[in-house]
C-alpha cells in the first residue's frame, strides 16, 4: 500500500490523532476527502475498520484549529464539517424507528467506502506513474527510416478537357494574326554613341537639343531620342566625362565635355 511520505502536507503524519497540528495548511490538501483520508491513515488501521466517529472528531478538531488561526477555509471544508457534525450526532444518538433516509451506519459505511476508493485510485495512480514511461525510461527507435513513398502518377484528363483545350487553342490562333507595327526606339547605346561623337569635338557649352537637332526631325522619334539622350548624359556625368547645367526647370540643358584637370569655368551653378 501507499506510504505516507507522498503527502505534501505540513501536518506531520507522526502526530497522534489527539494532537491537532499547530500549523494548519489546507493548501496541501486536495479537498476535504483528501484531508479525511490523511486523518484516517493516522488511525493506523485498515480503512475498512476505521472509526468514523473518531475520524469526525479529528476532522472537526482540525477545522476548529484552522479557524483559531483565522485561516480562510474553502466552503467545501465547512460543508464537510457540518455534515460530519450531523453524522456524529446521528451516530451518538440511538436510531429512531421509522426514520426516513439512510441510517447513520449506512452513511458512515458510505463515507468509509469513499475513502477506500480514493485510496485505491491513488495507489493505482502511483502504480501507473511508476511504470516505465516512453521517452523517460524506455525509448523507441531514435532515427526511424521513413518508408519511401514512390508515387506513380496516374494521369487523368477528360474528353471535355481535351476538346476545350483544342477548340480554344485553334480559335485563338485563327484570330491572332494581327501584326503590331514595330516601334522605333532610340536605345541608350545609340544615344550615347551619337552624343560622344558630337561632343567630342568641342569644350564649349552647347545645348542638348541643338546637338540632337538632326535626330529630332521625325516627331515620332522626339520622345525616345530626348529620353535616351538625357539618360546617357546623366550616365556620362556620373562617369566624369561630361558636365551638365540647367538654369531652371524646363530651361534648355547645356552640356560640354569635362575639362581634364584644368578646371574650366562653368557659367553659373552646376
Amino acid at each position, binding site marked *: 500500500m501507499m506510504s505516507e511520505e507522498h503527502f*505534501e502536507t505540513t501536518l506531520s503524519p507522526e502526530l497522534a490523532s489527539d494532537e491537532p497540528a499547530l500549523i494548519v495548511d489546507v493548501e496541501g490538501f*486536495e*479537498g*476535504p*476527502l*483528501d484531508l*479525511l483520508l490523511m486523518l484516517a491513515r493516522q488511525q493506523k488501521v485498515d480503512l475498512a475498520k476505521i472509526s468514523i466517529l473518531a475520524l469526525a472528531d479529528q476532522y472537526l478538531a482540525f477545522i476548529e484549529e484552522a479557524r483559531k488561526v483565522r485561516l480562510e477555509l474553502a466552503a*467545501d471544508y465547512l460543508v464537510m464539517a457540518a455534515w460530519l457534525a450531523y453524522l456524529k450526532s446521528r451516530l451518538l444518538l440511538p436510531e429512531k424507528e421509522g426514520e426516513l433516509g439512510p441510517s447513520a451506519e449506512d452513511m458512515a459505511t*458510505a463515507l468509509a*467506502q*469513499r475513502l*477506500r*476508493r*480514493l485510496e*485505491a*485510485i*491513488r*495507489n*493505482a*495512480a*502511483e*502504480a*501507473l*506513474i*511508476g*511504470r*516505465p*514511461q*516512453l*521517452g*523517460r*525510461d*524506455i*525509448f*523507441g*527507435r*531514435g532515427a*526511424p*527510416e*521513413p*518508408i519511401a513513398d514512390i508515387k506513380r502518377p496516374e494521369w487523368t484528363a477528360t474528353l471535355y478537357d481535351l476538346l476545350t483545350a483544342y477548340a480554344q487553342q485553334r480559335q485563338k490562333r485563327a484570330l491572332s494574326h494581327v501584326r503590331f507595327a514595330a516601334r522605333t526606339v532610340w536605345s541608350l547605346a545609340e544615344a550615347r554613341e551619337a552624343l560622344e561623337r558630337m561632343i567630342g569635338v568641342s569644350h564649349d557649352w552647347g545645348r542638348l537639343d541643338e546637338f540632337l537637332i538632326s535626330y529630332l526631325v521625325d516627331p515620332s522619334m522626339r520622345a525616345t531620342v530626348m529620353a535616351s539622350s538625357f539618360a546617357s548624359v546623366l550616365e556620362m556625368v556620373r562617369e566624369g566625362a561630361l558636365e551638365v547645367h540647367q538654369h531652371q526647370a524646363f530651361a534648355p540643358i547645356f552640356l560640354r565635355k569635362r575639362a581634364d584637370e584644368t578646371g574650366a569655368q562653368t557659367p553659373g551653378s552646376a
Partner: protein
Amino acid sequence: MGLAKSLDDDTLVEDDTSNQFPAERPEELRLVEALLFAAGEPLDEKTLRSRLPEGVDVASVMRLLQAEYAPRGVNLVRVAGKWTFRTANDLAWLLARDSVEPKKLSRAANETLAIIAYHQPVTRAEIEEIRGVTVSKGTIDVLMETGWIRPRGRRKAPGRPLTFGTTQAFLEHFGLEAIGDLPGLDELKGTGLLEGSLPSGFSVPLPSDDATLRDDEDPLEPGDLDLGLAPRAEPEE
C-alpha cells in the same frame, strides 16, 4: 556473415556467437525486424501481413522474434495491440540522458488521469465525486495536451456532460498492450471499488477504451470539436 571472420582472439564471447543464427533463420524474421525498425512507430499485425509475402504466419513470427530479442538491450513489445521495438526496461539509467525531461504531472493530474483510465468512460462530475474535490479546467487541459485522454462522447444524462477516455498514445506511453493491463486492475475489480457510486445501471465495472460508445453515451457533436478538445472524432450515425 563474412564479418564473422573478423572476430578474432580477443572476442569476449565464445566463437559460436557469429553463427548463432542458423542458416535456417526464416527470412520472415529479417523482414519483420526491418519493417519494425524502420517504422519507428508500432505496427499492427494486419499492416505487417500486408507488407509481407503471402502466407507468412505473422503471429508465429512475432513470437519467435520476441523471444530472440527478450534478452537484448532492445525488446520487441506489444503496445496498444501493435508491435514495436523498445529499449529494455532495465536500461533507463543508461538512456536517461536522452530524455527530454518530461513535464511532471501534478498530483491532481496524476489522480485524474488514473480515474479516467480505470473508470473510463467517465465524466468530470464522476471524477470529482471520487476525488471529493473539483477538477479544474487546467487539469483537464494539461491531460488533453499530453494526448493521453480524449473526450469520447456525451453521457445520456441531464446536462449531457462529456465523457472522457484514454487514447492509443496513453497505452503507448505507459507500455500497455491493452487497457485491461492497467496495473492493479484485478485487485481493484476484486474489491468492487471500481463500481463506485456511479448511478446504478450506468456503471460498468471494467474500464474500456473501446471507441464504441456505451449505451449511456451519445456521440460528440460538431460543436464539441471546435473546442479543440477532440482531435479527430468520427461522427457515428
